[in-house]
């Protein structure tokens, strides 16, 4: 039975893991830097301490961005798996992936140059595309009242298919370098972004996760079905609205900054659930923290393993996430079964 103290303890441990991972990854990269030299500060002449410059200008923003995206995707995955009562749900299931992709492709091809709150045109358009698509899927899904969840999933599949076709069409008429840029974006990358932009988005994601945490108790109840939850005092419509809204926003933020990084939103919630159990009050924060650590580690591997080239981080998440999950499943499989009697 989960208690407040147990949860706090576990969160502390998870945060400690995150800090250790970040510390290690901040020191790893194509250039050698050491903590001693970094602590010497920017130096008498700004720009003269190269290790400091690399740390502050490249490593730190990148690690923070990876943590941010990892937390958002893992947290959103928890929520969507809960609301849709589907173990295969991931943050992109309701059209966010194709919506964001479409926004990004439109930005790339049209050559927009505006920026907003420091985000590049691609970021802004991807964000707008993601949210618009979620809204479309939600609107379509609400037309039928019988099985709202099924129609939502179907609407998501249909919209994903249609938008993906649009993306393919636009990509086929694009110039070759635009096509390259599009594919690159779609593969998911943690790339260089400025610190203020990261902090802005960090705040938004943190707020979103806080809002989502506040409905975790209701999500536990919703596991038994909406009418059962209603009999225990849950307002299913309000909870679904908050859940979809907040998770859509944080996923859109993550996707707009990094493209489509797969696996994190699907695998991390399952892994944590296997180890710690399905109580969402615990599952959400721990998944978010471990998701952050996972992506920071994956990105570090992506940028060092074939240095000086960089792999898209989505490649690493898929290649490491899959086997790791299989091991976890084998060890804990006595604890859980997907098929109820």
């Amino acid at each position, binding site marked *: 039975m989960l208690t407040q103290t147990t949860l706090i303890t576990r969160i502390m441990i998870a945060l400690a893991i995150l800090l250790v991972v970040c510390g290690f990854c901040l020191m790893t990269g194509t*250039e050698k830097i050491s903590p001693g030299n970094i602590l010497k500060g920017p130096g008498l002449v700004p720009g003269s301490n190269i290790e400091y*410059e690399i740390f502050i200008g490249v490593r730190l923003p990148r690690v923070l961005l990876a943590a941010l995206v990892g937390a958002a995707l893992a947290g959103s995955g928890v929520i969507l798996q809960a609301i849709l009562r589907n173990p295969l749900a991931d943050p992109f299931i309701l059209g966010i992936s194709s919506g964001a992709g479409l926004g990004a492709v439109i930005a790339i091809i049209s050559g927009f140059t505006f920026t907003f709150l420091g985000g590049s045109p691609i970021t802004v358009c991807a964000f707008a595309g993601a949210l618009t698509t979620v809204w479309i899927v939600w609107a379509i899904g609400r037309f039928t009242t019988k099985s709202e969840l099924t129609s939502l999933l179907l609407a998501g599949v249909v919209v994903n298919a249609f938008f993906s076709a649009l993306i393919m069409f636009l990509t086929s008429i694009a110039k070759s370098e635009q096509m390259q840029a599009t594919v690159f974006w779609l593969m998911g990358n943690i790339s260089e972004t400025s610190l203020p932009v990261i902090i802005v988005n960090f705040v938004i994601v943190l707020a979103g996760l806080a809002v989502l945490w506040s409905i975790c108790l209701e999500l536990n109840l919703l596991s038994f079905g909406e009418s059962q939850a209603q009999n225990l005092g849950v307002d299913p419509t309000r909870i679904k609205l908050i859940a979809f809204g907040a998770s859509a926003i944080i996923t859109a933020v993550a996707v707009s900054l990094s493209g489509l990084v797969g696996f994190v939103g699907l695998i991390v919630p399952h892994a944590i659930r296997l180890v710690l159990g399905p109580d969402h009050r615990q599952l959400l924060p721990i998944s978010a923290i471990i998701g952050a650590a996972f992506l920071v580690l994956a990105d570090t591997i992506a940028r060092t393993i074939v240095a000086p080239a960089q792999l898209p981080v989505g490649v690493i998440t898929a290649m490491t996430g899959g086997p790791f999950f299989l091991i976890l499943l084998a060890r804990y499989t006595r604890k859980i079964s997907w098929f109820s009697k």
Partner: protein
Amino acid sequence: MVRSKKLNLVILLAATIVAVAIYYTSTKVAKPVAPQSPQRIIVTSPQLTEIAYAMGLEPRIAAVTSDSDYPPQAAKTKPTVGKFWQLNMEAIIAARPDLIIMEKFDQQTSIGRRLEALGYPVLTVHLTDIRQLFEAIDTVGQAAGVPDKAKTLIDSIKSKLITLSGRFQTEPKRTVLWVMQTEPIRVAGLETFPNELIELAGGYNAIGKTIQKYPPIGAEQIVSSAPDVIIQPAMSQTSVEAERAGALRFWSQFPNIPAVKKNRVYVIPADTVHRLGPRLPQGLELVGRCIHPELYDANMPDPNSTGNLNADPNDANN
């Protein structure tokens, strides 16, 4: 905290306000200015490497991209900062540049903006057609403090181009299909740099006006365009021979187009014809030989024979 609806809204609102506030109060850095005579220049594309070396800037170049294969010593002796398509920002910073020269491509501009935000001067040039080549050489020369070398280089390239072009403007004008890749078939259209080479070399593009610059085309259009010459720059540097064999096999499925009937399918090394740089005149010569082979006597090397047509690297500096 948990059980109130209004609190959720308040959290979101507060977060948005805080976020916006943080953004607008973070200090904006002024665009960094390069020194008059930069001593540690980084160039981020093979084209820029060739241009920089041709202006004698080698001692002042701090790093190049790993795919800068000309001059051959560039990537071997200088530190590298990733590839053109994927720059390594840490390596760029580690090289302590005082000027970074980039091309105007999306991948590069975002890194360029980041570097500027960190205080490194960045110069961006367009480099997608011949006119831009001259402008770029001039810009780079001004920025590097060697405007006279730039002028010399521009004049040298221009005069060679004019001489060569003059030779090639003979009748008959032949139609040329410039093939970028074969699966699927993509060709260079009218508004491209290869097209400029075609026209300078006394040819016409076999394809008419298209929406895209490098359109994929179908078999029907290939046959109806009936090109006299097919030029297919090799995609990889090392196995031009293998690509030639593959290309001849590929084109044998169109036995009735003039280029195939008359055995005028040429697979040439791409580095002089797909790059805008000091070796442009060599590229033009190569293209001209493909279009007007009759202007060259039997003693001169045939573009389709083994061996490259890379001339002396110091040629452009004379």
